[in-house]
């Protein structure tokens, strides 16, 4: 799509409903599983191509990698966190004690995210970046996205493929120090119009709940 087409595309949001949020909970369960090293170069190639387009800031082409019903999700919490077992049982102290769970911390219905972009909001994001007056991206962030450790994770969802990988993203804006953002990514791939497309991407940062400088570029 070119920018003009994106301007008029997906100006309503109808698919993010209870069933869709439930699907995200299923995803989280499935992402935990052991994966098998990815043997399919085309699938790995799609994710590497996504990185390349982001590093080139070719947002319009990047948008085309995503399915009609899609999600780009950067949570602000470790969505796979579990209370660790402790030798000798629970300690009694606050500083050594347990963190109380927030309200359904992994469910975006009750928790804001750093990014929770359906197709419409992805369009907003691209148009916003292209206005030429988004000062947070003037000058723009230069990025180098590196992904590796691709594994295919089993899924019960017919027609979907789940790929988990590790990522490191170096970012620099002129006048600012280099930053490193790292974590794991999950890509749910589907076939649409004969093409493999990204239906849902989660970029799970190592430090999602810490304070971050300017995060107005894409992971």
């Amino acid at each position, binding site marked *: 799509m070119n920018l003009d087409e994106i301007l008029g595309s997906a100006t309503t949001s109808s698919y993010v409903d209870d069933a869709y949020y439930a699907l995200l909970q299923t995803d989280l369960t499935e992402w935990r599983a052991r994966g098998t090293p990815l043997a399919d170069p085309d699938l790995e190639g799609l994710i590497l191509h996504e990185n390349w387009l982001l590093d080139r800031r070719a947002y319009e082409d990047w948008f085309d990698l995503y399915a009609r019903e899609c999600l780009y999700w950067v949570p602000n919490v470790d969505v796979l966190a579990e209370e660790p077992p402790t030798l000798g049982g629970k300690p009694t102290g606050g*500083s050594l004690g347990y963190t109380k769970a927030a309200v359904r911390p992994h469910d975006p219905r009750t928790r804001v995210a750093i990014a929770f972009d359906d197709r419409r909001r992805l369009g907003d994001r691209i148009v916003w970046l292209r206005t030429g007056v988004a000062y947070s991206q003037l000058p723009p962030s230069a990025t180098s996205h590196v992904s590796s450790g691709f594994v295919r994770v089993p899924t019960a969802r017919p027609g979907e493929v789940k790929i988990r990988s590790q990522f490191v993203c170096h970012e620099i804006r002129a006048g600012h120090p280099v930053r490193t953002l790292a974590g794991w990514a999950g890509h749910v791939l589907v076939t649409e119009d004969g093409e493999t497309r990204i239906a849902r991407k989660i970029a799970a940062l190592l430090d999602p709940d810490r304070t971050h400088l300017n995060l107005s570029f894409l992971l």
Partner: protein
Amino acid sequence: MFTDLVQPDRVHRSLYTDREVFTREMERVYGGTWTYLAHESELPGPHDFVRRRLGLRPVIVTRDAEGGLHGLLNRCTHRGATVCRDDEGTTARFVCGYHNWTFDSTGALVGVPMRKGYGPSFEPGSLGLGRLRVESYRGFVFGTLNQEMPPLEEHLGYAARLLDQWLDRLPGSRLVVRHGTHRLRYRGNWKLTYDNSADGYHPGFSHASLLRMRKQRYGVGVDMQWTLGDVDNGGQTVTDLGNGHTFLDQRAEIDSYWESSAPMPGEQAYEAVLRERLGEEAERMLDLAVGSGMNLNIFPNLLVIGNQIQVIEPFDVDDTHLIWYATSLEGEGVPEELTALRMRLQEDFPSFGEPDDLVNFEECQNGLSIPEMEWVVTHRHLETGRSHLDENGNLTGPVTDELPIRAFWRRWTELMTSETKLVAR
């Protein structure tokens, strides 16, 4: 002491760049007045706690077994280690990791290993954690080390009435502040945020990206378009509420909250569900997904904006964290879908609005480093005769009036020059 630097129409750049000023602010401004710490819904039950800061001081806000609120200095009375190292949790006991001195949720010292080593004059009663004076107004918990401050509600003055209006959009509902945060950081002074909080001059310019994107994608009626053009002749106003509290009111520009809302994922899906289930009542619920049209700023660190609570956390003279707490409403008849819509909408401005402001703040900090360019201009509308006392006796002006900035500096100067002794009880 600061009269040369804070003038009626301008302030000196060093107030943003001088680390000695910053150090004094962290002692005298934060802690010398009622300073926002936490919302009660973050610690709903007995022995719940959250870890916060009062200026640079590490503090814990706790509830005791009976539900009483306490503000405790997070500093072991033995040799100084922090006793709480979690952001939030539930515990009846804070055990210092160093030698295991143990404090209860009121801050009292209740355990000292091998206590016999201290001899007969040892008085655990005098070795509890340092205590702030704490008061809560409708769930908003403030603390201070100034024992001479008037009661919180008196100090808030008309800001409390506006907070009532913000809270009472759905009468009978309660605010819940347990939905995660946007944690934004910028390399600039904390006051750049307060300067901006009732700045009706900047949106048409600093937020040009957001406004252009919306207009191009959705047309003129959507989201904040009223901030374009000659806003001095529009319906928005700014008000000095006293004690450094300020207010920017957009409500006169908003005909229908839902219709003029920024977009949010799931909008049409949940709108259909709510209209189907609630009929005419749906309109009122949908409006509550959308921000209040109020920017209410409680000196020095609490900014109630839209449906969010922003808290300014200074770390250094040129390093500030701005924490946006997401909120929902809890109560009879509040549908779950409303919470989901509120979450999605509260992601919008931290994505497409605030980052541009924060970069402008960073660029202010850069520019303010130049010693030969000394002054920051704060006199917009000072001489136009447009401001007047409103029906509550508060000074109100057109939305680009810099009277909120001047109000801030008056309160700031009072606190920075005050000799009142600050003490932990």
